[in-house]
């Protein structure tokens, strides 16, 4: 029988997990040129929630963990050289020819729109993991130090219990269908910004009528064959590879960045007091297991 047994119910384990996931952060920015358009993004992500299931095979699964894009700044630049409103005849000649035309003009140069998509979400649809204890020896610890020396210098050894992912599956970024309107409005605004400020409203509307439905313009230029929402989700998730990056980052984080549980070794059971050194107990043979009911941590007291 182990000297020490600690158990945490599924409820307590869920809270422990939530505490670990709360400290996850992921930031990334990237840009790419895709020919007719270029895009860039900057994201910061945190995790929240999730539903726990403990398994009898020494693993647990977390499902429906929200991946919240606290920041998702997306910039889309449509390169529109040669996208021109054709001239139309102002002074026709009597033979249906044209003498003077409304000058055709081009919506030239890059039109860039900044979309603040903060608040979008994805999900860890499934994370399966076991627990793995690790013994951490602070590399800054000097060879001649006792455990107390190490503690007083802030370099004590640690027992750590990490979540050891077996797999992590992240869903595509959930872009709402209303992104269509948001993007259309943003592009429309960007086009409007190309117009001189003195241009009267009716003239703007006339020009916009010549341009036709912006959504058609966008889908045509971006080569969108599905909905804008699906296109954007695919762009961010797959083309930029955010989903894969997130899966890797999440797995790496749980496996080695933030332990579920850690404590100093030797473990202080009585604090320093009245000039007396703290009393520290060496912990050996730490093991962490999971069954369908609870997490169990067992250890021995060293001699």
């Amino acid at each position, binding site marked *: 029988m182990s000297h020490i*047994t600690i158990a945490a119910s599924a*409820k*307590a384990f869920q809270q422990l997990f939530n505490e670990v996931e709360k400290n996850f952060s992921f930031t990334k920015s990237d840009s790419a040129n895709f020919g007719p358009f270029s895009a860039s993004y900057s994201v910061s992500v945190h995790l929240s929630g999730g539903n726990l299931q403990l398994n009898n095979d020494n693993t647990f699964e977390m499902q429906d963990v929200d991946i919240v894009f606290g920041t998702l700044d997306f910039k889309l630049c449509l390169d529109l050289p040669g996208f021109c409103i054709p001239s139309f005849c102002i002074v026709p000649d009597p033979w249906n020819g044209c003498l003077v035309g409304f000058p055709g003009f081009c919506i030239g140069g890059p039109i860039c729109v900044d979309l603040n998509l903060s608040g979008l979400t994805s999900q860890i649809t499934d994370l399966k993991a076991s627990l793995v204890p690790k013994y951490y020896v602070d590399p800054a610890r000097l060879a001649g130090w006792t455990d107390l020396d190490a503690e007083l210098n802030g370099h004590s050894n640690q027992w750590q219990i990490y979540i050891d992912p077996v797999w992590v599956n992240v869903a595509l970024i959930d872009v709402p269908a209303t992104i269509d309107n948001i993007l259309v409005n943003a592009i429309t605004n960007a086009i409007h910004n190309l117009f001189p400020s003195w241009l009267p409203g009716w003239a703007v509307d006339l020009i916009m009528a010549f341009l036709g439905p912006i959504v058609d313009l966008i889908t045509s230029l971006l080569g969108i064959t599905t909905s804008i929402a699906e296109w954007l989700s695919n762009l961010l998730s797959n083309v930029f590879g955010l989903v894969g990056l997130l899966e890797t980052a999440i797995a790496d984080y749980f496996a080695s960045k933030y332990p579920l549980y850690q404590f100093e070794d030797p473990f202080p059971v009585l604090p320093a007091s009245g*000039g007396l*050194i703290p009393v520290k107990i060496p912990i050996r043979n730490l093991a962490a297991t999971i069954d369908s009911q609870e997490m169990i941590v067992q250890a021995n007291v060293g001699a």
Partner: protein
Amino acid sequence: MGYTDHCDLYAAVQEDGINLVAQHVMRQRPSWFNYATQYVSDHPQIACVPVAHTIDVTHYSNPLFKVVSPVPILGADSPPVGLNFCVQLVKAQVDFHPGNVVTLPAALSPPLAAQHLAMHVKICGGMDCPSEFVKDFLPTPTSYGEATNIRQPQQVVPPTRKLVCFCLDAYLVAHIGVQSIAGKPSLVGIVDSVDVVGIEPKGLSENINCYLKTTFELMLKEKLIFPISTMLFDLPLLSLATITAQLTPNPPIPNNPAIDDDQLKVFITITVAP
């Protein structure tokens, strides 16, 4: 059956583990368990039993002994005379119910009652026997009379080459209670009875038993108190603002903390704030 069938957190320490913990405490806090006069403290080689300690104790200039006054020779005041001595708790062994490690003396009504622990403590002590000192002793003249303006002579402690040592086996029965210390629920030992084996006459035995019981009770209350969180290696959950932890009540847990299966067990229920 799971450990947390009726609670959220469970912690248990097995008696072998607690005995190792006791050894670590005694080695890292020797001055809590070794009492001696200054002379003995300065000459630890004459103590009855070598004081086991870790290197950090001396490295950080912690004392091996708690220095106490010499034992006064009653009636001697010209000058007052005191004798060097030491008292050392050299072994402590805990046996959680069911009793299977410590054999309790009849005075403690074995077998060990449920939800109790037995403890065997070996105490060694010794005092100087200064026969040569007395032979050559001359009273100090200034100590005669009632001249109040004359300073009283300092106590004389004869130098000691060797203490006359003995060891006692003390047994005690205790249970564990919970007390809030600095807002933290903590485990505290409550001594029920003590018996020192082989002391006669009965009155002396009772005196010694009473003395030891008082000593252990005060020591357990003052010094050997452990927050329950220590048993959980300070699990981070317990310090979260959103978590309220409390000992699981009866029902469903009849004894909390519980002493059974050779272990000390604690059951905790948590409440998560929305």
